[in-house]
């Protein structure tokens, strides 16, 4: 706990250490995409000659940021690095945005997971608004135009702001999913009208009640081609240039992550060519569609932590050809959200057609099995194995040589899965990534 110790010894430590980062600080916050976006920013700026200081994935509360700063300091208090790239828990933003005095704050999206920790989604947005109103005018706010709630916060900011978004209606899933959180205008209460829904409440929306509409983004993805688990190809349009890019990150949600990172890097004056080149060479982190070898065949791990994200992961899995086995691992620890009722907002009915075996695992394996029963999935397809290690074995055995295995864990279930695979020498150690 070096972070907590340092904070206790010297409460101003974050402020003083952060000031020594010569290229400043970028904060990434939001419900989904923090880890991928901040890792992508680090990957790009390294190619531009900067040395990023990064907090460990998941260590995104104030203590985790203090720990990262202390760990990267010499005994004389000098920092080994010149740019802070910190992923910050959505409720922590108000606590750390003052001391860190960031050059940019990236707002990815707001979903209602972890309501048990934060109360209600409006409350989080309100906290962001207050945090930003206290930010220095030099701080740029980079925000997702496709999320009406985030866009409302972003456009209300008085300083420099950059919106990013997708401009391709073919990415749409057609209808507003049940998992959508923000269906009503936060200004006047009317129902949003969508020209396209990308997933959840992300999309091309407007309010006919008060005239509020999606702000026009400056950093845009057009002509999107989804390549399933292999990633996505699209045209990246920015004020600095336009270029066709291909990312190995799958799913529409990762387009937003790439756009967010691109906008943040442009703001840091990284050349456009460097950004587009690095997008193509960025490999996913564990649990973000990383393929692992397991008993001689391939398993793909896709983190799924809230309804809209889970639906998108399910669609990605179902688009893959061939026979498959699906393992779903649900934990209810604090980092997952202790309230697992969100499982009932995920459209597991998508899994009902076909005969793919499903292994349910984790601390709430039995809840997951129950959810599948009410999704109309034949009980004979479902095996309940609460232990994640044993569940993985059962899933691998069911997969055999002929089927692909997809593992869909919640956050702490993913960490446990990684520990299991590390013990077997199948993944690099956490901190080496």
């Amino acid at each position, binding site marked *: 706990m070096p972070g907590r110790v340092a904070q206790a010894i010297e409460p101003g430590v974050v402020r003083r250490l952060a000031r020594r980062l010569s290229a400043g600080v970028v904060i990434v916050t939001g419900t989904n995409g923090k880890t991928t976006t901040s890792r992508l920013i680090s990957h790009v700026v390294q190619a531009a000659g900067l040395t990023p200081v990064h907090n460990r994935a998941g260590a995104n509360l104030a203590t985790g940021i203090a720990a990262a700063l202390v760990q990267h300091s010499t005994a004389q208090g000098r920092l080994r690095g010149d740019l802070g790239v910190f992923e910050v828990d959505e409720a922590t933003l108000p606590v750390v945005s003052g001391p860190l005095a960031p050059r940019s704050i990236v707002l990815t999206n707001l979903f*209602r997971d972890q*309501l*048990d920790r934060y*109360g*209600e*989604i*409006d409350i989080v947005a309100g906290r962001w608004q207050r945090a930003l109103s206290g930010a220095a005018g030099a701080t740029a706010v980079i925000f997702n135009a496709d999320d009406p709630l985030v866009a409302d916060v972003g456009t209300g900011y008085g300083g420099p702001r950059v919106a990013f978004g997708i401009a391709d209606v073919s990415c749409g899933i057609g209808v507003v999913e*049940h998992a959508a959180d923000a*269906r*009503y205008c936060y200004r006047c*209460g009317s*129902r949003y009208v969508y020209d396209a829904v990308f997933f959840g409440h992300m999309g091309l929306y407007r309010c006919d009640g008060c005239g509020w509409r999606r702000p026009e983004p400056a950093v845009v993805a057009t002509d999107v081609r989804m390549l399933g688990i292999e990633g996505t190809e699209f045209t990246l349009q920015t004020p600095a240039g336009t270029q066709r890019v291909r990312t190995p990150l799958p799913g529409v949600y990762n387009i937003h992550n790439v756009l967010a990172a691109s906008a943040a890097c442009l703001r840091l004056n990284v050349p456009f060519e460097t950004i587009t080149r690095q997008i193509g060479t960025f490999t996913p982190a564990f649990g973000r569609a990383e393929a692992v070898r397991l008993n001689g065949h391939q398993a793909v791990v896709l983190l799924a932590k809230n309804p809209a994200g889970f639906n998108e992961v399910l669609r990605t899995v179902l688009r893959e050809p061939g026979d498959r086995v699906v393992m779903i691992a649900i934990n*209810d620890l604090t980092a997952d959200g*202790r*309230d*697992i*009722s*969100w*499982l*009932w*907002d995920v459209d597991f009915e998508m899994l009902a057609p076909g005969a793919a075996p499903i292994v349910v695992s*984790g*601390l*709430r*394996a*039995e*809840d997951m*099995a*129950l*959810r599948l*029963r*009410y999704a109309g999935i034949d*009980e*004979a397809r*479902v*095996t*309940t*194995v*609460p*232990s994640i*290690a*044993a569940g993985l074995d*059962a899933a691998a055995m069911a997969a055999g040589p002929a089927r692909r295995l997809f593992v869909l864990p919640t956050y702490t279930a993913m960490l446990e899965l990684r520990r299991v695979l590390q013990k077997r020498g199948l993944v690099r150690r956490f901190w080496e990534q």
Partner: protein
Amino acid sequence: MHCVIVGTLMELRICHLYPDLLNLYGDRGNLMALSARARWRGIEVRVDERGLHDAVPSGGHDLYFLGGGEDRQQRLAAQDLRESKGAALRDAAGRGAVVLAVCGGYQLLGRYYRPAEGEDLLGVGLLDLTTEHPGPAAQRLIGNIVIRSALLGGATLVGFENHGGRTRLGPSARPLGVVLSGYGNNGEDRTEGAVSGHVYGTYLHGPLLPKNPVLTDHLIGAALRSRDPEMVLAPLPDRVETAAHNAALARAHGLYPSKASGTGVHR
């Protein structure tokens, strides 16, 4: 499975109120449980969704459901509920149809809800209770909860609660259960939920009904008996439901069900 259906009534008519506004915390799981458990018994199910400004005719449904919502959505629903649905709900309560409300909807069935900020929301007064939010700085009552319900022969009900408002029952409402673990209506008097006739309110989501099939069947039976007093429900195999119920019981007591039940594989 062979179903034995006593009586002649073959349709359960459900009215889902404010599916857009009040749909927090997996509330649609409650509709799934009601519908599936009726259909598995060969009973037809019709679910009508009724939102803001939609008229709800009196006498048209056997079971009315209201879910939870955030403060803003709850305020929109409160006024509409009084103005365009109150009469139908009072009629339902009078003829023994079932009204079930969870969390935000539960608060609206009472006399009033006093939020942390802003004016009071007047409820429809079907349940003799009041709810007050002690202010924005007050702790929300959040966590796994287990209650024991005398109404259901002492059965346990499991769920998750997450509410700022504190509810106090008046003399003509009885609690749905007594809190074994968690906070309940107000975190002080160990009561949870409220029942008056066949009007039920509770803070339990999780969602409420899938993991508590005893309550689900009680509600389906009561709803159908409002039109056919002879109606008896055939039992269903509840192995998966019971496993999830027991896992939630263990979790609410701070246990890890996977450790409690070993690493065994069960189908």
